[in-house]
């Protein structure tokens, strides 16, 4: 645990209206300053709603949000028995004195939000989007730094309509960071991209997260992404936290919603272009799986692993 006052404290209840009727979102978690949390779960579980509540774009039934020393939301009715969430979390069951009925508007919260469809401003060029996001009196050099980090210099005078999906995503990420937020919220930003682009952009996210010392929450459906990027993962189902912890721990203990899963031993690792082909002996069969260099970290010949697949390429998870 970090000292009280640092990181993010989140606790909220909200009635969700989904296609399958209404259900109660009831979530509580604490996030260390500088860490990256992944939210995972089926659609309709409330992942995006949590980000929107954090950003102040969606209201709650009850709620308490504190980022470092600043209270963003305190509905003051957390002790209301009908809305009382679990009490095993890290939050004070009573809000801090004198902070009741706080609701900081979105523009006063130090957040960066990357929307699922990026929400770029159609009339502004890449550079202008970043300049707009820059706080008053901020060093304008930051725009150049971000353009360079996201490899957008060549495209800086283009408008969004003339950018590819990956370029739009990088612009949206750079714009969210230009605002110098303490909390970065990413709503499935990579879902529209092909695998190769995903890997590249995961690196951008990791780089920006570390470089700017951000606390980051990433909504993702994609396990390799979660394994690569996150310190912790929260699995949501029906508006509640099912599991919480580091990704390997969360996903190995229990059946994940994978279509295919088997165990085996790595017998060979061969480079092929920019990826590697990993041969795994599973029973009497050799399974060949493609992995990136980053995914290979910690894997070696002779190691026992689990292979799981959801929809695309299987992922390899060490068991020993």
């Amino acid at each position: 645990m970090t000292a009280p006052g640092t990181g993010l404290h989140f606790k909220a209840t909200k009635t969700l209206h989904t296609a399958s009727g209404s259900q109660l979102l009831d979530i509580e978690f604490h996030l260390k300053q500088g860490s990256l949390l992944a939210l995972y779960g089926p659609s309709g579980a409330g992942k995006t709603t949590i980000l929107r509540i954090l950003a102040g774009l969606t209201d709650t039934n009850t709620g308490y949000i504190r980022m470092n020393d600043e209270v963003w939301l305190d509905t003051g009715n957390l002790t209301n028995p009908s809305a009382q969430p679990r009490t095993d979390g890290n939050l004070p069951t009573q809000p801090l004195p004198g902070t009741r009925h706080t609701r900081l508007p979105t523009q006063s919260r130090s957040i960066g939000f990357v929307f699922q469809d990026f929400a770029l401003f159609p009339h502004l060029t890449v550079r202008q989007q970043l300049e707009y996001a820059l706080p008053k009196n901020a060093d304008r050099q930051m725009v150049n730094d971000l353009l360079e980090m996201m490899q957008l210099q060549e495209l800086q005078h283009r408008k969004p309509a003339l950018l590819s999906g990956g370029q739009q995503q990088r612009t949206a990420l750079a714009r969210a960071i230009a605002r110098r937020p303490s909390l970065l919220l990413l709503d499935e930003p990579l879902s529209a991209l092909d695998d190769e682009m995903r890997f590249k952009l995961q690196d951008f996210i990791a780089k920006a997260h570390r470089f700017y010392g951000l606390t980051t929450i990433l909504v993702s459906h994609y396990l390799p992404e979660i394994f690569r990027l996150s310190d912790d993962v929260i699995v949501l189902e029906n508006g509640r936290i099912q599991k919480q912890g580091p990704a390997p721990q969360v996903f190995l203990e229990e059946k994940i919603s994978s279509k295919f899963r088997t165990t085996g031993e790595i017998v060979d690792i061969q480079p092929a272009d920019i990826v590697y082909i990993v041969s795994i002996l599973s029973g009497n069969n050799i399974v060949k799986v493609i992995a990136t260099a980053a995914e290979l970290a910690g894997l070696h010949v002779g190691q026992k692993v689990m292979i799981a697949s959801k929809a695309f390429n299987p992922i390899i998870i060490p068991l020993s």
Partner: protein
Amino acid sequence: MIDWQPLWLSLRLAVLTTAILLLLGIPLAWWLASRRRQWKAIVEAVISLPMVLPPSVLGFYLLLAFSPSSGPGRLLDHWLNIRLVFTFPGLVIASVIYSLPFMVNPLLAGFRNLPADLHEASRTLGKSDWTTLIHILLPNLRAALITGAVLSFAHTIGEFGVVMMIGGSIPGITRVASVAIYDEVQSTHYPEANHYALALLALSFSILLLVYLINHRHNKSPL
């Protein structure tokens, strides 16, 4: 020799009315579009009334309201020494009310068609609603702004019934082109009436042509 004064007066009236409507219409449409509430339908209906009401009905009630012998007109006359009946300022106010839907409705449709996350994205970047309106929303509403301004302008140039009721036909003060045509016809001065009528016809056609040209350009090129 044709007297240009009525045409000049019509132009002045239309420019002033359009300018006031822009200042009034943008916040009004934005407010109407911001959150859907049942009772806002009443406000929308009131704003759109001049589109369906005979201009003489509107003119009649405005005449009653502005009349220095009763109601608001009396208060204005008594406290501020302002008269609105048979004066140019009276015409401007009546025109603003009469053309309000032609400004507000295109803007309202424009605001509602903007993706909601443009506004949300701007707020997450720490920008106030006002900054968002000026720097993000309005630049993406160019087509609606142009349509609203041009329609209000054209509608004001073309109004007759309301002007007649409120302003009468005082040369140089309230005798706009449309009223002048009526006067000339009454006096069987057909060539003079034709001058004004032709001028209005040419003006109206040019304005509409401009709108369609702008719309065509907007549809072709990405923003």
